[in-house]
């Protein structure tokens, strides 16, 4: 008994020490990721913020002099001749188009992705893997090439118009390229898997006996979907929507190829400032504006989603 007494004490101390070592070990494991984040995300972000408050250089680049010109030109523009300040409606139009197209893309992705994910989740285990594999196939090819492939389908001499003309359904090719619709279709095509995968992940966990219970308690298909399935897959809906909305908002390649010069989105506007525009501070300020839009949209969305959640359950 005498030497049994200090044993638990010792064991506890040893366990605590092991715990500390364990925590230290885990920090060490996450160090590479933290370093990458620090140097590749937070570092550049700080530089972007600093640039947005500097004067633009003549041939691109920046001059190290404090200025709020860039921030003013995000929303306002100065007439070169009269120095009159007006609202930069070209920028606002692009902001609006970006938000509108990203929102529509997200809604469409949800509309197409939900039944797809439901279909996959209700297959047997073997064919589920096959379907998931098929969903990821588009990721295997370069985005640019895929976007050009979409162009091949929808351009005036493309497949869709050839068929429509061949069948005599239209007399002249339907203008699809270089429209908002073309951009949205392109975005939908690119980001649909990002909606399907998280939706599938949360649907797969549903106990389908709950669906039976819903039917048993006089719920029609629509009611089962709205009152049982939807609340249960809401985490997937939120994750999928975020994964589609954010990259859509900053999309660059798709609007560039499918929207032509006329249907710019925020990503193209930013790129222009660092390219032909030679206005790095404005580009930086626009980038931060984009981030701000994303954050506001996210906050709004998450707050709204949790409110409906509280009402249902």
């Amino acid at each position, binding site marked *: 008994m005498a030497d049994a007494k200090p044993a638990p004490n010792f064991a506890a101390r040893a366990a605590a020490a092991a715990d500390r070592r364990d925590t230290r070990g885990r920090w060490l494991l996450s160090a590479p990721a933290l370093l990458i984040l620090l140097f590749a995300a937070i570092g550049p972000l700080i530089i972007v913020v600093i640039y947005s408050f500097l004067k633009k250089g003549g041939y691109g680049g920046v001059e190290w002099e404090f200025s709020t010109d860039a921030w003013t030109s995000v929303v306002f523009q100065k007439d070169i001749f009269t120095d009159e300040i007006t609202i930069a409606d070209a920028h606002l139009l692009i902001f609006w188009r970006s938000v509108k197209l990203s929102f529509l893309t997200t809604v469409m992705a949800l509309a197409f992705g939900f039944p797809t994910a439901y279909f996959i989740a209700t297959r047997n285990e073997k064919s589920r893997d096959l379907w998931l594999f098929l969903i990821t196939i588009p990721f295997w090819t370069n985005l640019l090439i895929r976007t050009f492939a979409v162009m091949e389908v929808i351009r005036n001499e493309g497949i869709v118009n050839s068929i429509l003309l061949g069948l005599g359904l239209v007399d002249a090719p339907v203008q699809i390229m270089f429209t908002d619709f073309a951009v949205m279709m392109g975005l939908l095509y690119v980001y649909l898997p990002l909606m399907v995968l998280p939706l599938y992940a949360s649907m797969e966990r549903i106990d389908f006996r*709950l669906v*039976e*219970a819903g039917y*048993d308690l*006089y719920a029609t298909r629509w009611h089962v979907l709205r009152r049982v399935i939807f609340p249960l897959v809401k985490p997937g809906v939120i994750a999928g929507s975020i994964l589609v909305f954010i990259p859509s908002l900053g999309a660059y390649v798709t609007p560039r190829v499918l929207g032509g010069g006329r249907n710019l989105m925020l990503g193209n506007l930013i790129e222009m400032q660092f390219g032909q525009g030679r206005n790095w501070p404005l580009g930086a300020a626009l980038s931060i504006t984009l981030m701000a839009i994303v954050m506001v949209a996210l906050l709004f969305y998450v707050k709204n989603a949790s409110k409906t959640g509280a009402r249902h359950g």
Partner: protein
Amino acid sequence: MSAAVAVEAKDVSKIFGAGPGEVRALDNVSVTIRQNEFFTLLGPSGCGKTTLLRLIAGFEMPTEGSILLEGEEVAHLPPFKRHVNTVFQSYALFPHMTVAQNIAFGLEMLGKPKAEVQSTVNAMLKLVRMEELNGRRTSQISGGQQQRVALARALAPRPKVLLLDEPLSALDLKLRKEMQIELKRMQLETGITFIFVTHDQEEALTMSDRIAVMSKGKILQIGSPTDIYEHPTVRFVADFIGETNFIEAEVMQRIATDGQIKLPSGVVISHPLSENVGVGAKVTLAVRPERIDLVRPGTEAHLGGTVQNIVYFGTDTTFHVALDGSGQEVTVRVQNRRGHQEVLKVGDAVGLRIAPEAMQILKD
């Protein structure tokens, strides 16, 4: 006791899959379940009892045959158009809703006015004795409580028939016994027809008005618990419910339904015979261990044997007796009403006496 029919299944078959891999889960089953009845489908797993329940609920459609709910054909109606509710084996409570919201679900789907929903939910919470937990999430209550909520949810819309799919199997023994009594109470209080599926013979015997014993997709026997226990008609039923001794015998003579049957010991007894066994036919007698008396070997005994083993159980003592000649082992249970009597020892010769009405002639 109303004799009106609640559910009638007519020549129902259900085949899963197709071709050589097909499974005939139900094979031409017919059964009539009366109103206000506690009816149990009893059988081992894979006997088709749950399939029959799911056909009545509407989760499966029969391959052949028809299902009538209070005289109306429902075989091909979806579950939400049938006025029956189910208590699932896994309870299947909605995890994103509170206890009260779960119970209200069916009523809301039927479009009942808010005040009625509220008062019915309260009445149901009271019926299952869960009033104080109405605001809890279903994940925050114990298994036994979940069971009660599942019951309340299924009873709330006042279904014509309540279907219960092994609802007690996940509970521990003590809780299960409590719930057996509770279920019976609720059935009497609500007057709703209960169809209960179980593989537990004791559960079936204690709660049911009538039991259907099923095996391999067929109903073998339907009867009251006493009928099923004391007068099994087929070997499977006698064997599945309780303990039974099977004794082979031969028909010596029959006049109308009065037969003379020769036991393995050579003793001939009188026993009523069903119409399909002729003279010379071999029959199997089912005899419950507690219906056999131990007597002195000799003229009084129907069978003779040697005591092989004596097992003391407290309330009773079991004797394993090897019959003279065949050596077949027969189990005899003697109640210890005056305490354990150490009259017999292993190796003693003993006589067995069985009242003729305790011998049940089986069909096969």
